[in-house]
């Protein structure tokens, strides 16, 4: 049970950290100042959420590791983040599409996690869900603007959705860890939020005059740490300082 809980916490925390890191890559590169500030603010929310979850994960594991050890001293096969979160930023339409698909997911996931029988998970979820509501508002606005904007913005966003769609099946993949924790009332049954996710995504995408991609291709693997080639590069950059100067302090 504790092992399963540790694994589950890593999945949640890793996804937050990786998408937070991706968004932080926009710092100083945003298309307009307001968006630069928005994305770095949102990145901060995710990294904060990851810190809280890693701290608790380390406590559950009980092997003396800290939140920093978990973030900086694991390799890609040990990372459990969703494949969607590690996909590169691409153009702004790509970042917005990735973020929108993920925001709808976390909005429903964390809403359910608020009812987790694990008090710490429920507390972190209640806190984060308020922030996620603002994230979702932000990306929903951009899906409308880009989708129902110019021919160029429409095409770019549709291409982004088409490219990212295969990774959405990974969002709802479950294994024995989920089964065990769902029974204990700790984890969320992802089948339950799948319908809500599909409904909301379809509503917004259709309203934005875009099409739900029809690709049959599906890519999974995050549950077993099987990632796309992008994660290794991301970790190499993110973990470099910590590994090059072990124990360094500000």
């Amino acid at each position: 049970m504790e092992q399963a809980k540790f694994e589950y916490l890593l999945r949640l925390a890793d996804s937050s950290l990786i998408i937070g890191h991706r968004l932080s890559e926009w710092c100083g590169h945003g298309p307009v100042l307001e968006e630069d500030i928005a994305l770095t603010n949102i990145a901060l929310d995710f990294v904060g959420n990851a810190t809280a979850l890693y701290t608790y994960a380390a406590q559950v594991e009980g092997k003396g590791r800290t939140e920093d050890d978990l973030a900086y001293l694991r390799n890609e096969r040990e990372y459990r983040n969703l494949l969607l979160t590690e996909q590169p930023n691409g153009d702004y339409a790509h970042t917005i599409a990735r973020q929108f698909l993920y925001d709808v997911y976390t909005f429903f996931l964390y809403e359910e996690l608020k009812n987790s029988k694990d008090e710490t998970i429920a507390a972190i979820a209640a806190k984060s869900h308020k922030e996620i509501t603002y994230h979702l508002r932000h990306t929903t606005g951009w899906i409308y603007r880009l989708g129902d904007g110019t021919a160029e913005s429409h095409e770019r966003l549709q291409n982004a959705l088409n490219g990212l769609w295969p990774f959405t099946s990974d969002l709802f993949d479950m294994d024995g860890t989920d089964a065990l924790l769902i029974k204990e009332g700790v984890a969320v049954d992802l089948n339950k939020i799948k319908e809500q996710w599909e409904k909301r995504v379809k509503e917004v995408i259709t309203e934005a005059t875009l099409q739900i991609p029809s690709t049959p291709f599906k890519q999974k693997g995050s549950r077993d740490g099987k990632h796309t080639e992008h994660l290794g590069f991301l970790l190499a950059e993110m973990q470099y300082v910590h590994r090059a100067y072990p124990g360094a302090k500000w």
Partner: protein
Amino acid sequence: MNSTLNQEQIFKLLSEIPDPEIPVINIIELGILREVKLENDLCTVVITPTYTGCPAMKVIEDDIKIKLKEIGIENVKVELVYTPAWTTDWISDTAKEKLRAYGIAPPDYSSIDKAVLLGKARDLKCPLCGSKNTEMISQFGSTACKALYRCLDCKEPFDYFKCL
């Protein structure tokens, strides 16, 4: 422990610590400081973050330790709690007035508004000239807890402490 202060007195002393990013209000007015516990020679101070990733929390933790050290309390543990989740409802009316005077429009309604989901911004009063003829520039502002607005009458941009 050299100090003879009790829990309430320490709590009151900590009200001298300003928020690092909005120095006109202190950590009690903002609702960040939750509790002070004294057990044997250990002083536990319980704080809660406004936003999960708020970078000011580390500064606040250090400020608390420095403040307590000044009165001879060195064995201090600062505990971070997430429940109950912080809400702008905890900001007192006096503190809201201080925010307004400082040029930040205070949160003007209870908790998170459903309009957030629909992407609708609310009409806000400009903290400088009082006009309601304002518009949102960005949902995300200079810190995690603020949004950026502008007044269409006095033409000044201003921060809005958004509801959470």
